[in-house]
């Protein structure tokens, strides 16, 4: 069940959009902001508000790489695996992250602290390699710098 606050935020998105369905991505993001991910129950409930079938909304949700249909950690690491970062040693950064966190790409640490996801170009190619943690962009990465960054997230 969506909370009152979530419902209010979804209604706000519906109000801002010309048609209900157009608010689909924003509505999914409302739920994800509060819960970290979007469950089947959430899809069912949201689809009603959006005037869509649950399948229709799920097809939209699963299309987007940044709508999570499975639980994720408290902090999601989006590391850029595109070409400029790859030239600037993305693979070494990824290796450092996986060995430090003890997980592979796509997995979540057992303490639920981090999920690690390789993503497409973050538009910071002049400061490669780059990654985001949550909503913050980090650039010119190096293994030591990654350690310092991760320490900030509990």
């Amino acid at each position, binding site marked *: 069940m969506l909370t009152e606050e979530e419902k209010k935020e979804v209604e706000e998105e519906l109000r801002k959009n010309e048609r209900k369905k*157009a608010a689909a991505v924003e509505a999914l993001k409302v739920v994800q902001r509060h819960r970290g991910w979007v469950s089947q129950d959430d899809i069912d409930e949201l689809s009603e508000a959006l005037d869509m079938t649950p399948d229709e909304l799920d097809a939209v949700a699963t299309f987007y790489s940044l709508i999570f249909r499975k639980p994720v950690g408290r902090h999601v690491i989006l590391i850029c695996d595109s070409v400029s970062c790859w030239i600037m040693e993305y693979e070494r950064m990824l290796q450092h992250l996986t060995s430090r966190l003890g997980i592979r790409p796509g997995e979540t640490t057992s303490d639920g602290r981090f999920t690690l996801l390789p993503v497409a170009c973050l538009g910071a190619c002049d400061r490669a390699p780059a990654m985001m943690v949550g909503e913050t962009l980090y650039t010119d990465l190096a293994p030591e710098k990654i350690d310092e960054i991760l320490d900030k997230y509990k």
Partner: protein
Amino acid sequence: MDKPLTGAMRSDGQALSLKEYEDAGGYSALRKALKGMTPHEVLEEVKKSNLRGRGGAGFPTGLKWSFMPMGADVARPKYLVCNADEMEPGTFKDRLLLEGNPHLLLEGMVLSGFALDADIAYIFLRWEYRVAAERLERAIEEAYQSNYLGKNILGSGYSLDMRLHVSAGRYICGEETALLNALEGKRAVPRSKPPHPQVSGLWGKPTVVNNAETYCNVPHIIGNGADWYKGLSRTDEGGTKLYGVSGRVKRPGAWELPMGTTMRELLEEHGGGMRDGYKFRGALPGGASTDFILEEHLDVRMDFESMQKTGSRMGTGTMIVLDDKTCPVGMVLNLQTFFARESCGWCTPCREGLPWIVKMLDAIERGEGGMEDLEILQQQTRLLGPGNTFCALAPGAMEPLQSALKYFKADFEKHIRERRCPYKGGV
């Protein structure tokens, strides 16, 4: 030199406030147009300026606009859409404009909306641009408060509403018809063309889609005139361009320079040349979907027309440099992996072909490829090329592959002969 796009920006990375933008002459072009010009005159000025779209394909903006149905009896609302999805690997130019001077984009969009008699404008922004999202949101609010947006803008009788749509990943959303599906709350697969968006776009209504950088040029074209704007360029294509360089150069970055600046100037003067210990081998001049160019092409001027001489394209104008210690096969594998993952899956050649290409390149890179694979890869570049797929994603993916097979053939063969990647450490 005049820098209409970035000249007024602050040096501390903060956005220009509305007041700072106005003090630097911001919104004066809009006042000028609303007071003394007809929509048709604005359109004609843009046509005369030779402005070409900055989203990658370089379509003449004035010509695109001239296909928008005009007059009292056309379907409404008419839409104006800004493509700020910027997910082409190696491209980081729109970010600079969106973060540094959001009001310039807004003014450009209101002027364009006026020229096209649009009723509603959307900015389609990728989620990852969090800073830009916040600044655009705020700029839109400020513009409403100052009546640069909303009803009866500055008493002119023209009205425009504007909304920010923040997406949630997926490169294909940047393809203009996929983008329209995304805005409608559907899966973001491309639509067949024709009909073009100008005729049947968002919710079937007349729609113009332009790149963010394209719109940012409009205020200066209207404010200073098409002749002034053309004078900024070193070639026939008007204006300045945001160029960029990434890879192992001394000073990677993006700069606003006259249209027609050569690749060599970009690389050496602005990018500072190669880092010590690295040599230039080639580059993708305008993002991941462009053909490689070589050292011998560096003196070509970067504009849409001139770049054809190199067999490549201007694309987004942001160059990705391949150095002599980076494996070209590995680089192409990285590119194809990206395209395979981002394929929307709608049409067969792209959905099935790209993963196959990735598998073959991966085998070659690991030293498990055969010489016959090169012939098959060559065939694939034709099968996934222009005319065989539903949208330009797959043909774009084939550009770096086909040129790599041509220019770096020896590298591919060496991988196959030595059964290993010669660039990887070890004996």
